[in-house]
């Protein structure tokens, strides 16, 4: 056993492996410090705030109140017992439900559409580079700008969408897209899908380009029909890339804020977890309560991603199945 070790040992008793690890640590340190400052510290502070009675007028004077912002039992003077706190707040659960509905519908649509777009772009045709660049435009526009733009397009009186649909005879009267509770969620979904499909398409395209051409040639020689080729060859081979893309999108969708804040800020039909926690943090005098909701949002995201990685056996390390 000892005979094999001295071969790689160097002065100071550190092996080459150990030296490399040490060097790597120093190279990583600045990034770790930066991450701690911009991610871990604010997160820990939010968790701390959620356990106090801090208000925005007095950020440093909060007192520890334990889990009262999450759940507490109140006994009224007439003897009735009731539960208060975020965990029994119907507005919060409405927001959770809205967020989940939004995330699932938007991510499914974006994945399917993105895959279709990627398959088209993966084909050889003239001007492919130009089309690939052009399709990214919706994703490149800042969300606030595109949301404002869509708000005008969706406007009931001057909106171009109503005008076109009326002229084509698709609708009989102008629809107030963002105003009515029935259509508000569709309006938000429509804009989000328009905006993020290109992102999905790009990630899918990257996956498609990794698939070796000779497999397709073999399938062609064997005369397999294209639909079967897609489900038996393409899909399994791009699955890892697709899973990662879906995680990215899901994380984004679960914390959606800007689009809804611009399009339908106060509609209970579209209010998401981020929107409601901001409302409590800033608009209402309930900074600690809003922090509790932010903490729950983080917890939900964490649970969701862990479940997804575990169930889908997604490999995020990039080392394949070694």
């Amino acid at each position, binding site marked *: 056993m000892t005979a094999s070790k001295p071969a790689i040992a160097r002065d100071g008793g550190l092996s080459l492996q150990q030296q490399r690890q040490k060097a790597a640590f120093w190279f990583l340190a600045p990034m770790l410090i930066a991450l701690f400052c911009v991610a871990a510290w604010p997160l820990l502070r939010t968790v701390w705030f959620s356990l106090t009675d801090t208000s*925005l*007028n007095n*950020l440093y004077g909060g007192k520890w109140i334990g889990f009262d912002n999450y759940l507490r039992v109140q006994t009224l003077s007439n003897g009735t017992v009731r539960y208060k706190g975020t965990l029994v707040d119907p507005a919060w659960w409405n927001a959770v439900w809205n967020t989940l509905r939004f995330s699932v519908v938007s991510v499914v649509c974006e994945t399917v559409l993105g895959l279709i777009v990627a398959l088209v772009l993966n084909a050889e045709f003239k001007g492919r580079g130009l089309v690939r660049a052009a399709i990214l435009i919706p994703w490149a526009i800042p969300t606030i700008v595109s949301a404002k733009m869509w708000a005008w397009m969706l*406007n*009931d*009186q*001057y909106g171009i969408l109503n005008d076109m649909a009326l002229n084509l005879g698709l609708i009989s009267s*102008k*629809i*107030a897209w*963002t*105003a*009515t*509770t029935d259509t508000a969620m569709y309006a938000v979904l429509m804009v989000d899908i328009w905006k993020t499909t290109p992102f999905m398409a790009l990630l899918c395209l990257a996956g498609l380009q990794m698939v070796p051409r000779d497999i397709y040639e073999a399938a062609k020689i064997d005369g397999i029909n294209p639909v079967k080729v897609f489900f038996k060859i393409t899909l399994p081979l791009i699955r890892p890339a697709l899973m990662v893309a879906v995680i990215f999108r899901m994380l984004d969708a679960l914390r959606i804020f800007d689009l809804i804040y611009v399009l*339908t*800020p*106060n*509609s*209970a039909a579209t209010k998401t977890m981020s929107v409601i926690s*901001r*409302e409590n943090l*800033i*608009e*209402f*005098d*309930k900074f600690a309560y809003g922090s509790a909701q932010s903490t729950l949002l983080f917890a939900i995201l964490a649970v969701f991603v862990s479940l997804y990685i575990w169930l889908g056996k997604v490999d995020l390390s990039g080392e394949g199945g070694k």
Partner: protein
Amino acid sequence: MSSGFKNRALRSVAAVALVSALGTPVMAEEIFYVSGSVGKAVENFKTLVKPWEDATGNTVTIVPMPASTSDQFGQYRLWLAAGATDIDLYQTDVIWAPQLADHFVDMSEAAKDLAPTHFPSIIESQTVAGKLVALPIFTDAPALYYRKDLLEKYGVAVPKTWDELTAAATTIQEGERAAGKGDFWGYVWQGNAYEGLTCDALEWVKSFGGGQIVEADGTISINNEKAVKALETAAGWVGTISPEGVLAYGEEESRGVWQTGNAAFMRNWPYAYTLGNGDDSAVKGLFDVTTLPVGAAGDTSAATLGGWNVAVSKYSKHQDVAISLALYLAGPEAQKARAISESALPTIVALYDDADIAAAQPIIPQWKEVFLNAVPRPSAPTLGKYNEVSSKFWSAVHETLSGNGSAADNLAGLEADLADLKGDAW
């Protein structure tokens, strides 16, 4: 704002050099004033402060904010909580004083001569525990805008009750649509779920005799038959005389429909008067204003008290200069200029008898009557919880208007929510 600081520093250096050359002992400062931008407020502000800039040698830079008061409030609260020194003066809504009082300078001493010339009720609304938090620069009370030409064309009288308004709007809308104007609507107002809906709905409830949500002594009065009737009336307008999209309208959206000549009636603030008479307006010279209708003959008209004030940040590094600007903006000279250029209602009592204002804006003396019927939002009794009260109120109203639940059910729910929120005391 680091380049702002640099500029500021450079300008101060330049000013010092200039001043020492001229031998005048004045130090020029650059201060920052933040304000929401509705209509032409931002453009007019530069002209408005010019005399003060010339007299003192200081300069003011306006930082424009979104038109939505809820958005402004969120941003201001963050800046103030962080103790930001970049902004010296804040233009604040009449309802914010109790919520932001801690962050502003007490101006009762500086304004001891000026304050008594204002309407006492407005000064009182800006006084929190003996501290004068902000100085009023103009007040606001909405009115009913109507198209003189169309009322005459269809032989309808100016409506006095909400039912008359509904009937008149229906007649005109049907007539105009038959004449080929497919996008014509009877009545436009502010129905989006935001602070503006609280104002609109408070007027309906109050003018039906249904109280003012939370009374001055803190009792929750919103769940009553008259309030239910008021909301049912308003819900009946959506999709009939008002477009369904009114449920997403703020002030500017309703003004858009009105000013392009597509509405017979509009509920809006005085700023829309000057803009409606602008050269690019399709309704120039064709409209007039009156008090908002009442529920039934015998009720009194109600107009939500709006209005804007100027507050000096406790964290400002130029407090003396900022206070000087606040006094100027709240003073007679600036209020008169603002009344003439923007039809903004003065808060100084004497200005309602001013001949120049009466000549330039004949509606302002008329508006004194609207203003006398003004009803305050319950920001004083509900203190720091006002925003949440307002949000719960506008949500219940918005639900009713959208047809989710009846007015009676939604108001009963609202009453329970407000009682919960109130707890033992506001």
